[in-house]
C-alpha cells in the first residue's frame, strides 16, 4: 500500500473516523482504523462495536493498492501536527511509514484481518432525507437523551418518518424534547437512533440516504458511510405524556428568563439545583433557597393567564430547554405543581413544531 495526499484533506477524513474510535475499549482492536486503497481511492474505517464509519478520499497521483490496520489516534495526531502540505503513507514489512515534510515515523501495523467483519448497509427500508433538517432536529432534541443505561431505550433518539411529517423525540423521564418538521418521506418507519450515529456525520452536504432494517440504520453521504446498531424498543409512549388543554399559560422573554435563572442558580443548592417559580397575574417570581448557601428572589414581567401557582424545578434542566429555543419569546403552560410543564417557542413559522416537557420537583 502506498499513497500521497493533501494533509488537510487527510486530517479532515481522519477526524470524522477517529471521533468514534473509543479511547478505552474492552476490545483493543477498535483503537485501530482500517486504511484501504483501491483504484485510486483511500477508504478509512473506524468502529466501536455499535457504530461503524467509513470515509473515502479520492487520491491524486500514483498509488499502490493494499490495506493495513494502524493506531487511529496516533496517526490522526501525526497528520494534524504535520507542518507540510503533503503526507505520504507507505507499508513496509511490518510497519506503516509516515512521511510529511522532514518528519518520518513508522507506526506498528496489524493485519487487516484482525479487524471485525464490517456490517453491510441494511436494505429493507431506504429513503432520502435533507441533511440540514436532520441536524436541525437532532440539535433541538439530543440534549434530553438519557445518559443512564438502566433504561437503555431512553438513551436513544426516537426518529419517526412518514408521509405527512417527520418527528424526533428524546427523553430521560424527567424532561422530553419533541420536534417535527414537514419533511415527507414515502415510507413510514420508526428508528431508535444512538445519538452518536447522527453526531459523527459530517455537516455540509444537502441530502443523506438512509438505509434501515430491524437492527441497523445506515447513513450514506457522498464520501461517508455510517452504519449503527439501533437501540431495542419499545420507546415509551411519549404522546400520552404530552399534555393537552393546559389551564394556565405564561408568555415570557426567553433572554430575560434565562438570565434570571442563571442568577438564581448561583444561590440554588448545587446538587439538587432546585428553584421555584411563582406565577402571578403579571409576573413570575424566581426563588432559590439552599440551607448551605442562602436564598435569592427575582421578579420577572410576563403575561400570565390562569390560577396563581408555585412550581418547583430543576433550574439546570429548565435552562437546558431555554438554550434550545431559538425564538425571542416562549410560552410556559401549566396545570398543577405536580404535573408536567410544557415549554414552547413563540414562532410564526409553519414548517413544524417544537415543544419541551419538564416534570416539576416536589417542594417542601
Amino acid at each position: 500500500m502506498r499513497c500521497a495526499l493533501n494533509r488537510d484533506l487527510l486530517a479532515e477524513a481522519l477526524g470524522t473516523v477517529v471521533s468514534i474510535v473509543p479511547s478505552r475499549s474492552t476490545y483493543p482492536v477498535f483503537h485501530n482504523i482500517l486504511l484501504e486503497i483501491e483504484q485510486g481511492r483511500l477508504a478509512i474505517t473506524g468502529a466501536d462495536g455499535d457504530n461503524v464509519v467509513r470515509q473515502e478520499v479520492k487520491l491524486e497521483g500514483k498509488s499502490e493498492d493494499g490495506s493495513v490496520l494502524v493506531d487511529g489516534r496516533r496517526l490522526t495526531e501525526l497528520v494534524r501536527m504535520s507542518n507540510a502540505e503533503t503526507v505520504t503513507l507507505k507499508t513496509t514489512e511490518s510497519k506503516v511509514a509516515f512521511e510529511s515534510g522532514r518528519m518520518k515515523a513508522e507506526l506498528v501495523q496489524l493485519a487487516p484481518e484482525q479487524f471485525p467483519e464490517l456490517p453491510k448497509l441494511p436494505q429493507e427500508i431506504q429513503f432520502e432525507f435533507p441533511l440540514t433538517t436532520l441536524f436541525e432536529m437532532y440539535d433541538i432534541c439530543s440534549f434530553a437523551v438519557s445518559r443512564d443505561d438502566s433504561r437503555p431505550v431512553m438513551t436513544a433518539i426516537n426518529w419517526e418518518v412518514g408521509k405527512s411529517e417527520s418527528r424526533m423525540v428524546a427523553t430521560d423521564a424527567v424532561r422530553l424534547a419533541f420536534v417535527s418538521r414537514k419533511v415527507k418521506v414515502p415510507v413510514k418507519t420508526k428508528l431508535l437512533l444512538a445519538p452518536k450515529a447522527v453526531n459523527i456525520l459530517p455537516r455540509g452536504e444537502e441530502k443523506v440516504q438512509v438505509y434501515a432494517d430491524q437492527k441497523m440504520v445506515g447513513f450514506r453521504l457522498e464520501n461517508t458511510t455510517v452504519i449503527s446498531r439501533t437501540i431495542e424498543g419499545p420507546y415509551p409512549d411519549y404522546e400520552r405524556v404530552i399534555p393537552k388543554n393546559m389551564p394556565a399559560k405564561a408568555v415570557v422573554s426567553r433572554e430575560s428568563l434565562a438570565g434570571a435563572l442563571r442568577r438564581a442558580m448561583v444561590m440554588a443548592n448545587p446538587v439538587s439545583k432546585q428553584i421555584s417559580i411563582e406565577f402571578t397575574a403579571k409576573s413570575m417570581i424566581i426563588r432559590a433557597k439552599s440551607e448551605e448557601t442562602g436564598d435569592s428572589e427575582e421578579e420577572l414581567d410576563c403575561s400570565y393567564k390562569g390560577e396563581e401557582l408555585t412550581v418547583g424545578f430543576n433550574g439546570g434542566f429548565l435552562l437546558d430547554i431555554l438554550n434550545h429555543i431559538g425564538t425571542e419569546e416562549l410560552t410556559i403552560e401549566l396545570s398543577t405543581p405536580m404535573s408536567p410543564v410544557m415549554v414552547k417557542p413563540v414562532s410564526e413559522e409553519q414548517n413544524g413544531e417544537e415543544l419541551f416537557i419538564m416534570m416539576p420537583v416536589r417542594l417542601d
Partner: protein
Amino acid sequence: MNTQPLLVFDWQNAILHVDADAFFAACEQATNPHLVGKPLVVGKERGIVTAASYEAKVLGIKRGMRIQEVKRLYPAVIILNSDYEKYSLFSIRLMDILRRFSPTVEEYSIDEAFVDITGLRRAYHCSYEELGFRIQETIRTELGISVSIGISLTKVLAKIASQHRKPGGLTVIPGRQIHLYLEKLPVDAVWGIGTNTAAWCNKLGIRTALDLACRSEMFIQKHFPKPCYEIWQELNGRPVYLVNSEPKNNYRSISKAATFSPTTSRLVIFSRLSANLEAACFKARRYQLAPQRLILFLRTQEFQESAVELKLSAPTAYPLLLAPFIQQGFDAIYQTGRVYRQTGVILTHLVSARNSQITLFDDPLRLEKMERLYRAVDLLKRRMGSEIIGSGMALTVSAGMAKRLKIPCLDIRLRD
C-alpha cells in the same frame, strides 16, 4: 531513652474511653445466668468465632477461628448463634448510661465510646478516677457486663489507657505520667497507626510510642502525613480529635449484609437478599435518603463474591419499587447449585429523598400510594420493632407453603 515527663500538668481536659470486654459473649452471659463463668463463643451461623468469652479466650480460642475447629479441640465450649438485636439493645443502654454522666458521648462502635468528662470533677465531687469507677460499676450492676475504662487527655491516649489492662481495667493517664505508658508500647499498638506506618516508623528508628511522641514537630511534619502529625499531637497530650457527640446522619452509603447457614436454596438466598434490601431501605428512609445506585452481592461458602451494580432511573428507598431490579440483579449473579453463605445490599450515591423530582412515565398516584404505605410501615417498625412488618419477598417460604403451614398473612389494601 528520654524519661522526662511529656507534660508538666495533669489535666487540662479529660477524655474517657469505654471498651466493653468480649461484648457479644458478655451480652449472652448477662441474659442467661447458666452461661456465666463458662467458656462460650458466638458466631455459629457464620461458621467463625465472632466473639469469645474470657473463659474461652483463656483456652486459646481467638476471634476468627473456625467453629468446627473449636468443636473438635474444645468440645466443652458453648457455641451460640449471634443475636445482633440483643447486642444493639445492650449497646443502646450502655450509651444511655454514659450519657447520664456526661452529655458529650461519641458512639464509636457498638461496644466502644468516648466521653468528654472535662470539668466533671466539680459536678460529681470526685476525681476522674473515681468517676471512671462509678461509670464502670453502674454498667456492671445495670447491664451485668464488664467494661475496661481508660482516662487521659486525648482520645488516642484514652484508648491506650483502656487497652492497658483488660478485662475490667480502669487506667488513668494524667499528663505527668504519659511517658511511662508510652515507653513500652510498640508504635503499631497506637490507635490510627497501621502496619505500613509502623514499618515506616521502624525505618526511622521509631519503635515505641514514646519514640514517636518525643520527636520534634519539624521531624514529624517532614516525614509523616497529616494524620500521623495529629496522632503525634494527641500522644503529647494536645487534643486534636474532639469527642463528636452528634449522631451520624450523613451517609455516603448504607449497607446491610447477613450471614446464614450455608445453603443452595434459591428461595432462601433471594429472601435473605430481600431482607437486606428491606433493612437498608428502612435505614435510608429514616435519614430521608434515597439511593441512585444499588449494589447486590452474594458470597459463596468458598468466600467467592459475585456482585452487580444497578443504576436506578429515579432514586427511591421503597423496596417494592426496587423489587424488579433486585430480581434482575439476583438472576445475573446467582449460580444454581452453588453453596452461598452471605448476601448483602449496598445503597450508594445517596441523595435527599425530599423535594424529589417527579418523572414523566411513572404513575404519580402509585408513588403517592407507595409513600403513604411506607410512612405507615416505618411508623410500625419504629414503634414495634423492625421485624413487625416486611415485604413478602423476604419470607423464606413460598406463598403456597405459607398457606399449608398456616403462617398468618395480612392482606393489606390501601384505601384511596
